């Protein structure tokens, strides 16, 4: 399993290098989303779990949980045959398992709503929502209305689009 994980990380790094070059040119911002958990693993979460950003923002997912591994995985048919919960045309991603201290980066450009989850913690509702751009953008695609291929715990954990757009970010460390 480890070679596979490292392979993905390596490939991710290669893709990132290309993306990073364009980021430097456009000076697009970088947002950090931490994977966190309590000492005994009673609760685990993305911090923040809701975030609104401009197109071209780089996301760095960092595992800050010393006792657990996590993934950032987009809901998409190309990844475990899940129903799509990111804009059509957007590139799906899967960080594979990140051990404590490891990170993974991706750049999101297509406007719309992106839902993602942590593979080993989906049942515990570890999921997040990113909004790229604004609803008045002609390419914008709103949130998925599918409720069949997603766990109730995830739906309960995802902030509403309205709240994310109103607040900018939701669920910083300490407020769940």
């Amino acid at each position, binding site marked *: 399993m480890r070679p596979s994980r490292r392979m993905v990380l390596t490939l991710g790094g290669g893709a990132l290098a290309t993306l990073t070059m364009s980021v430097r040119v456009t000076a697009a911002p970088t947002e950090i989303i931490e994977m966190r958990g309590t000492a005994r693993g009673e609760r*685990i979460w993305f911090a923040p779990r809701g975030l609104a950003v401009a197109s071209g923002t780089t996301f760095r997912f960092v595992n800050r949980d*010393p006792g657990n591994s996590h993934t950032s995985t987009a809901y998409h048919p190309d990844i475990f045959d899940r129903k799509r919960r990111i804009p059509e045309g957007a590139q799906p991603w899967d960080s594979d398992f990140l*051990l404590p201290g490891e990170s993974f980066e991706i750049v999101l450009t297509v406007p719309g709503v992106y839902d993602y989850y942590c593979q080993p913690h989906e049942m515990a509702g570890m999921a997040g929502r990113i909004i790229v751009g604004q609803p008045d953008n002609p390419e914008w695609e709103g949130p998925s209305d599918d409720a069949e291929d997603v766990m109730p715990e995830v739906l309960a954990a995802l902030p509403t689009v309205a709240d994310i757009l109103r607040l900018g970010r939701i669920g910083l460390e300490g407020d769940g």
Partner: protein
Amino acid sequence: MKKLLPLAAAMLVATTGATIAHDEKALQQSPPGDPYVQVSDALPLPEFIPGLGMLFVDPATLPAGPFLAYDHDGRLSATIYMTPLEDLQDGATYDGLGIGSHSVAGVDIYYNAGHPGVEKPHAHVVLYHDDGAKGRLAE
């Protein structure tokens, strides 16, 4: 299967109160040997998990275990069981589980939301084998 026999014998002792002697020595120091595998070698988890230490398990006993927990010096410090709550609610039982050592100085039971290997929300049942074990496994 060599190590399963002392584990099974230990459980028998624990449940009957008898004083049947068996070989615990093989499990007292890591690595415990076949059929146990180090959890971090088989799953994407840290080699030393704060609170749980270095874990070894016989894959055939998943998800419940026993997981043998060793400190940084390789000393057996705890035996841990992981029981999915949903499975228990659905009627699953985990009977006759092995134990790493007859000596139990304390027991902690707490909820865990899941991790690779046991992804369903579950309970950790931790049997510490000496007074200092909890501290040695903490970090």
